[in-house]
């Protein structure tokens, strides 16, 4: 991929109740956002273990984003609080694996925030494009 422009591969974990619906809304509203995101639907942002994030980043993804319901809106009451607590551990792990902090994001996107979802993905894709490929990508 020497001459081609670098296209980041971003893995997005979206919670079933808010963010996946938000992504859906972005789709049905025909909002444009870069095709670099691969969405994985999970039941709750709180179930995304740091292992999954680190595995993705060390095995081919350039960035990972976790999207969940806004604090207080979690379908399971406190799942997104667990996600937020893990964010700190994930940030430290990125440091331990020599990865830039920009390669991981945690965002709250509700089911009605299609435009916000598109905006977040646009922003992140550009940021990661500027960073270049993950050092673990071969």
């Amino acid at each position, binding site marked *: 991929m020497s001459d081609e422009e670098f296209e980041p591969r971003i893995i997005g974990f979206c919670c079933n109740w808010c963010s996946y619906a938000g992504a859906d809304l972005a789709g049905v509203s025909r909002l444009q956002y870069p095709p670099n995101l691969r969405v994985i639907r999970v039941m709750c942002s709180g179930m995304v273990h740091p*292992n999954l994030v*680190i595995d993705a980043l060390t095995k081919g993804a350039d960035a990972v984003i976790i999207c969940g319901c806004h604090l207080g809106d979690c379908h399971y009451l406190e799942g997104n609080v667990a996600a937020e*607590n*893990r964010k700190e*551990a994930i940030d*430290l792990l990125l440091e331990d*694996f*020599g990865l830039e902090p920009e390669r991981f994001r945690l965002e709250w996107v509700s089911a009605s925030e299609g435009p916000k979802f598109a905006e977040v993905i646009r922003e992140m894709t550009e940021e990661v494009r500027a960073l270049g490929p993950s*050092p673990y990508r071969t």
Partner: protein
Amino acid sequence: MAVKVAEEWLNICGGCEVTILDIGEPLLDLLPELNFVHMPVLMDHKYFGQTGEKTEMEIPEADVGIISGGVRNEKEKHVAEEMRKKCKTLIALGSCACYGGIPAMANMFPLEALYDKVYRDCKTTDSADTPSENLPPLLDKVYAVDEVVPVDVYIPGCPTNPDIIVRAITSLLEGKEFKLEERSVCDECPVKREKKASGGEIKRTLDSMEFKQGEAWEKTRCYMEQGYLCLGPVTLAGCGNKEEDGVTVPRCIKGYMPCRGCFGPIRKGANPLVDMMTAISSIGLDAKQVPDRRALLNRYIGGQNRLRPLPARPK
């Protein structure tokens, strides 16, 4: 007929060989069944013939091969390959052989950086060239034995528990497979667990722990809940022996110290660093306070690519 055993030590301190001695009385029952045909730590057996007359390395054929220590240089790699060729069953003994062990902490740095540190940048010695004569060249990093040749049986531990060696050899004599159960140290630890969050500060093991010596283990509070960093949740169980009262106590726990993680990850492919950080954040300890996280949580398991030099960041 006695089973032929070949033992070889590679990049190791020799502690695992002492553990074989430490088997104690059960060793007397085992010995008639075993015939050690090659064991550098005990017997004078040269690789290239007794007077060095041969050109090919020679290790006698054996039914069971035991390798302790990781693979650091070309000679050790050669010996490991020769052992694999000559032995029907190969046992990796100790954490160095299974995961790289303490020496594999060097994998955090590229080889050139290590040479510079030792031979050129050391403040108390004169700067010199890297020695190359009459020494086997070092490999680029420390390898676990199974990164070089296939291994049949793993006996981790630093040093390991003599009881496991006996169990492994006995089951091999009976023709059975031997594998440690995939359980964590916490699964078999008998201490009392009350509630998750101990909150805040991670204490150092120098600070005194709350326990009464001799008291029943069910009354001693979990060290992790007391705020000490214990690697029990992410470490393979098996180090403890059954006590007289039927309770199995992991060895460090028995000595009133938190688990250091020498038995390595619970299953292949697990990453204790990541798992432990998750565990720490989920019980409410401050993960930022863990000193030298990468080295500390990978202390015995730096081989198999778990520790590697950090990728250079583009400036």
